């Protein structure tokens, strides 16, 4: 029994040691592979609310229910505030505010593809993954439907197919992963924007571009790029002429949402200390008990001899 447990512990310690090592090396590869993450800069001052991004999204993501293009020309949808849901990964809203010229303000809502995504951190099976190219991808095969991601997301983006009784999935913007990574083209929403309010590119270059735009047109933009630092940065970033709160973008700190939880969790298991400490303690207890036992037995024997 003792031998068995010892063997198991050895094995477990060895395995987890290897695991930690391999994880570390994997991370090193990801950060050194030279993949610069993609992003999208949403310049809301150019958005005219034509809903062509919604159309482009629907046409690109073949697993969404098909809609005809006239359905996306209906401007009456702006009368109500909408959120991305299981059937549409992106929506445009006309916001209850006007810009400096008195024109209506529109803003696109979709998954922000955070640099440190809370959904991926909360996902207990790794169905949501942050890819080195930027998109946060979803694997329906791994998903167990716990919906922790929906609770974790600071932008309340992941939607659930409640209407699907047998094979419901979590649904959110895919960033047209296949298209941008394997085909090198732009996401559907960006490619279909007639006014090029959306710019697709390397995230670092987009930040540069955003600040250059602000510097050149002080009168046009608020001096802030939403998503540059918010919750540790997002892949979709926004420029605006009006306060970002009016754009339906929540005020966020610069700390990544999963920072605290991950710190605790990862801290606890860092270097395999707690299990080693626990089993070490147990081992000490066992050894001391055993010593006592041996002494007691020896004493008994002595007694017996005597």
């Amino acid at each position: 029994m003792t031998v068995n447990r010892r063997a198991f512990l050895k094995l477990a310690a060895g395995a987890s040691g290897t695991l930690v090592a391999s994880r570390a090396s994997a991370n090193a590869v990801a950060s050194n592979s030279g993949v610069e993450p993609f992003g999208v800069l949403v310049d809301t001052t150019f958005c005219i609310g034509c809903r062509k991004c919604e159309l482009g999204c629907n046409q690109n993501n073949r697993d969404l229910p098909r809609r005809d293009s006239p359905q996306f020309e209906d401007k009456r949808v702006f009368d109500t505030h909408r959120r991305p849901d299981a059937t549409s990964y992106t929506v445009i809203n006309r916001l209850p505010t006007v810009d400096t010229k008195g024109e209506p303000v529109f803003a696109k809502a979709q998954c922000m593809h955070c640099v440190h995504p809370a959904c991926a951190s909360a996902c207990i099976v790794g169905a949501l993954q942050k890819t080195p190219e930027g998109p946060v991808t979803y694997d329906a095969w791994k998903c167990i439907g716990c919906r922790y991601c929906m609770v974790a997301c600071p932008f309340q983006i992941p939607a659930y197919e409640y209407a699907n009784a047998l094979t419901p999935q979590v649904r959110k913007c895919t960033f047209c992963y296949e298209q941008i990574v394997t085909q090198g083209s732009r996401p559907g929403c960006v490619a279909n924007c007639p006014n090029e309010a959306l710019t697709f590119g390397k995230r670092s270059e987009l930040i540069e571009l955003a600040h250059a735009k602000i510097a050149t047109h002080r009168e046009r933009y608020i001096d802030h790029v939403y998503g540059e630092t918010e919750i540790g940065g997002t892949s979709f970033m926004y420029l605006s002429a009006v306060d970002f709160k009016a754009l339906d973008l929540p005020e966020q700190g610069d700390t990544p949402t999963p920072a605290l939880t991950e710190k605790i969790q990862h801290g606890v298991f860092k270097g395999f200390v707690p299990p080693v400490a626990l089993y070490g303690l147990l081992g000490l207890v066992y050894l001391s008990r055993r010593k006592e036992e041996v002494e007691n037995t020896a004493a008994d024997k002595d007694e017996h001899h005597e």
Partner: protein
Amino acid sequence: MNSLFCRIPSLTAVVTTALVTSHAYAASAASKTLPPNVPPSMLSQPNCGDCHTCANPTRQDDCLNACPRHTKAHTTSSHAAKEAPDSFVIDKLAEQYAGVNFNHKLHANMSEMGQGCAVCHHYSPPGRIPACETCHTKVANPTELRQPGLKGAYHRLCLQCHREWSHETDCKVCHQQPPAGAQPKSIKDNGDIMGQSHPVIPVPEKRVYDTPYKAGPVVTFYHKEHVELFGLKCTSCHRHENCSYCHDLKKTVAQKKTMEQVHAICSECHEKDNCSTCHDTKERPAFSHSTTGWPLNRYHTELDCRACHPTGKPIGKLMRDCSTCHAGWKTENFRHAVTGVQLDEIHSGFECTDCHVNRKFTKPPVCTNCHDDGRTSKTNPPGKRVERKPK
């Protein structure tokens, strides 16, 4: 109008800097798609010093000169609006939507009262004003994020004013709707002169030719009808003509053509026809469907010829009975409202032949089979009269 021009100064600044940057200039000078009128020295061998002030520019400090595009030397002041065409079709990207009929004259006149041509033509070196697509590529250049693609450049220019001026951003405001059932125009179709930014040429209704053919000197050519009926482009027939065919003001005598040359274009389609198909002793009236023996009634006049003649060929032996073509119409699937009468609940349950005895739909229906007060459909319609809406 006042409000528009009050806003133009800010607008110019926005448009100008949004569309070009000094870096774009440097990048494009090095590439093969050079903007015209770049100094020859830069064309042959781009000199770093033309754009950069220091020897080793870095990403952080690119030490760029002010872009020559922004300097006063490159302005459109030397041009007058009348040098440009009055109007043209912007359809370089026409795909989802038809091209835009752009009235250049109107816009030029408006801007002359304000900031001038530079409102739109933000880069205009001496000489001919370069076209937008000289710099703005059809797909936005991924290496130059500050420079919008051609689609973005077009839309931003138009919308910056239109959004503030008319508050209309609907696609249909500028894009003409393609006719129902028409194939979307291909981007590559520059075969027609209209596709090369030529202002729309009004199509003449008809042309009457006086020919030397003694037996029938008069040829009446219904030009518009030919174009619309057979979907012809200008170049389908006028492909051997050069610009001076229309633009030579001193042209006095028509060029002599041989008989073969004159007939060549027509006989491409009318190869089997004889002289009398076109030649007559007097001017001919336009085509009327009644000459075929069936004057079109109120429902059919609104249809396109091709709706019934998809191959362009006449239909022989047509019975004048509705059910010859519309055999499938029954009580369940016929929308009676198209006739101008929406049947009430009682009448909508009847068979067609209950009122239209012997399926004579062209004659007024018979009411006396059920009603013995001698009423007719005119005095007592079997439902509500509605506005007739053909499908």
